[in-house]
């Protein structure tokens, strides 16, 4: 037995086929479970089984899916870090940040779209669309979200890339980790963690820029004059990025995230899943030059698929909870198949339906249009249409009418009946507006407004603001015959005196 500190690459790999290294690796999840369970059973009944974490050293994959993942990484992180810096001119007094969640003033800005607090249902709509979109892609192609776009995956991918840069790819990294704490090892680890912390700080920093004018906040952060809540959230996000992306990685997906448990409900026999096609792979075994490929499978048992797996499983064991469907095992296997001269696609996106057949290709008889996908798409299209219609038809002058409920009506000394209403007039433009309130629906009514002279006063509403007006509507005794019941419909219209833009609400006039 060699000294542990003097391991060579040969200790980790042998040959699976000519020119194809065989990785001495067992799927982490399986090995861990087995060992720990044995320990627990040995400990006696009633003891809790505890699994120590097996570090996953994912090998760098090369191929189409790795390229797609890298492109998405650059795209999503680019959007995340740069979006707050895009400017948008909205005129004086209003923020010039294109994408701003201004909680302080209860306004959300998305480029030309401005959402006020009372319109928060648009955000609900966005969340519903996001959830349904997640259901749709999952029913079509499994955990595409987990594998490519989830922040946990994207940041982990970046952290792993940084780790590789400082500490080398799988084999070098493993060998150094198994060795003693030399200066070489220490500075490489230190560099890795330093880089991670810097990335984490940048992540937390970018997050707070979404909530306050970015250039202003950047200056404030540097000079120590930013609001304490900005530092708190920067700290929280920096810490969680470092912890979850750098340290915890696949543990988050396996033990913390509820999505793997939910997604099972969205998959069916026609969903495209990253799968090992056992029908053409088995029986597996090493292949020597000149050996026949008859009566055996294409799998040379090189375990390249296990070596690249970021969650440490063996895809050949079938669909597993841990699998985030990142498709890196497809890249790894295709590379090997090219080397041994067998067709690509031993591991591929395929359906459960095709896996059951010995002759079917990975995507034969693919049914994208199924009741499930059509339903999700239909509901998404419906909500998108509703939101677009609602956004396009919303007015920059809006009112809400709140009828007094306590008391609902007041009888005056001359026997007339009076109702009170609070009318909130919302001016979403960047100009002061002059409006008039018109009340109609019952003959003979007399109106007056608290603090305003005359029956039909001109009301000024400040820039991008709300003004509340108290309106009294009185029905003289002699006109009470106009009322058909104790609650009669009443229409209140607020109209701009110059442009004629108006907003109307129907309310009720209450009487004894």
């Amino acid at each position, binding site marked *: 037995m060699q000294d542990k500190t003097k391991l060579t690459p040969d200790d980790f790999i042998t040959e699976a086929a000519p020119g194809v290294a065989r990785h001495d690796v067992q799927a982490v999840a399986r090995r861990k479970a087995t060992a720990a369970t044995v320990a627990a059973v040995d400990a006696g009944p009633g003891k809790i089984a505890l699994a120590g*974490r097996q570090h996953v050293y994912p090998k760098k994959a090369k191929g189409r899916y790795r390229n797609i993942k890298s492109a998405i990484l650059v795209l999503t992180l680019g959007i995340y870090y740069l979006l707050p810096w895009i400017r948008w001119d909205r005129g004086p007094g209003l923020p010039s940040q294109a994408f701003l969640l201004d909680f302080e003033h209860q306004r959300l800005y998305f480029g030309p779209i401005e959402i006020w607090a009372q319109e928060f249902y648009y955000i609900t709509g966005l969340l519903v669309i996001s959830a349904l979109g997640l259901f749709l892609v999952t029913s079509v192609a499994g955990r595409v979200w987990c594998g490519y776009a989830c922040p946990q995956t994207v940041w982990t991918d970046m952290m792993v890339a940084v780790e590789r840069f400082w500490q080398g790819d799988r084999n070098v990294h493993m060998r150094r980790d198994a060795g003693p704490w030399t200066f070489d090892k220490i500075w490489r680890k230190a560099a890795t963690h330093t880089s991670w912390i810097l990335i984490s700080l940048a992540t937390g920093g970018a997050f707070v820029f979404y909530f306050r004018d970015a250039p202003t906040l950047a200056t404030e952060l540097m000079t120590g004059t930013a609001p304490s809540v900005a530092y708190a959230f920067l700290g929280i996000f920096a810490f969680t990025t470092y912890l979850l992306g750098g340290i915890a990685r696949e*543990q988050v997906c396996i033990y913390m995230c509820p999505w793997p448990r939910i997604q099972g409900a969205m998959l069916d026999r026609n969903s495209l899943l990253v799968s090992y096609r056992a029908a053409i792979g088995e029986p597996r075994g090493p292949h020597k030059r000149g050996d026949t490929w008859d009566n055996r499978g294409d799998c040379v048992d090189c375990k390249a698929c296990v070596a690249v797996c970021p969650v440490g499983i063996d895809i050949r064991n079938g669909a597993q909870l841990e699998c985030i469907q990142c498709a890196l095992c497809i890249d790894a296997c295709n590379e090997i198949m090219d080397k041994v001269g067998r067709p690509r696609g031993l591991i591929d996106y395929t359906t459960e339906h095709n896996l059951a057949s010995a002759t079917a290709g990975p995507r034969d008889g693919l049914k994208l249009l199924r009741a499930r996908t059509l339903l999700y798409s239909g509901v998404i299209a419906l909500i998108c249409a509703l939101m677009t219609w609602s956004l396009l038809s919303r007015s920059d002058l809006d009112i809400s009418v709140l009828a007094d409920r306590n008391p609902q009506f007041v009888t005056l000394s001359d026997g007339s009946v009076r109702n009170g209403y609070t009318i909130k007039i919302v001016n979403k433009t960047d100009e002061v507006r002059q409006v008039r309130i018109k009340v109609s629906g019952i003959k003979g009514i007399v109106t007056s407004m608290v603090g305003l002279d005359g029956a039909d006063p001109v009301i000024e509403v400040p820039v991008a603001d709300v003004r509340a007006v108290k309106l009294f509507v009185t029905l003289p005794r002699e006109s009470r015959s106009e009322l058909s019941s104790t609650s009669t419909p009443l229409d209140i219209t607020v109209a701009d005196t110059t442009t004629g833009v108006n907003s109307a609400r129907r309310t009720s006039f209450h009487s004894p």
Partner: protein
Amino acid sequence: MASEKHFDEVTGTHTTGHVWDGDLRELNKPLPKWWLYVLYVCILWSIAYWILYPAWPSLTDYSKGYLGYSQRAEVANDIAVAKAAQEKYRQGIANTALADIPKNPELMQFALAGGAALFGDNCSGCHGRGAQGSVGYPNLNDDDWMWGGALDNIHKTISFGIRNGNEQAHSTAMPRFGLDGALEPAVINDVASYVRSTGGLEADKDAATRGAAVFAEQCSVCHGEDGKGNQELGAPNLADSIWLYGNSQKDVVTSITTGRGGIMPAWDGRLDPVSVKMLTVYVHSLGGGK
């Protein structure tokens, strides 16, 4: 129950040994160690919390914590900050004549908001949350005022109240015509019929005619010959549609017999002058202010 150890080939996991329905077994899946460590960290966190923050009760007191944190102090501080922010407006109201407050939109907005809160805390017990009143407690939304509905009148009524013993309170009261034996029950019934007729309600014409003579003699001094009342004396208008104690024959008879006469506390001294001013403006704004 726990009978034999079983190894599940498919998952590569041992079972707990529990068996239900003959073949249903529970996998003994291991918990990650860090999960347990998180529990330990939480325990350490709680110990640190006990030391830093108030945590343990004793019979008469509680542990104050190293940081000396107190929610009560925090609230007191918040209130002080809010009060300081209000000071500018309160000063403005103190220095502005009642009649001029509605002319200043900023002060008016503050007075109405503050007045509404003060009303809810101090007045709604009798007058109702919406100042709608109830039998015996006037509705402050309408235009019928016993002691006057101008800002100054309302200010005086709130400041000193009604029949509460305060020197400056409204103190005139209606005689107890029935209880003190001044009028016979039959006569009171006649007067009630007349009063109802002045208010536009249907009444026995003969009784009303008889009652009119008694009214002119006994009641018109305060309520006026036409029954329209006198706000100097707090004598209500009997010729309108508003009836504080109800408008049935029985209600009116009871009013004449017992004299009624509600009581309102004086708020001068209980509330500071600025608060009384804000309440006045608020009540005046409810719709009936003169």
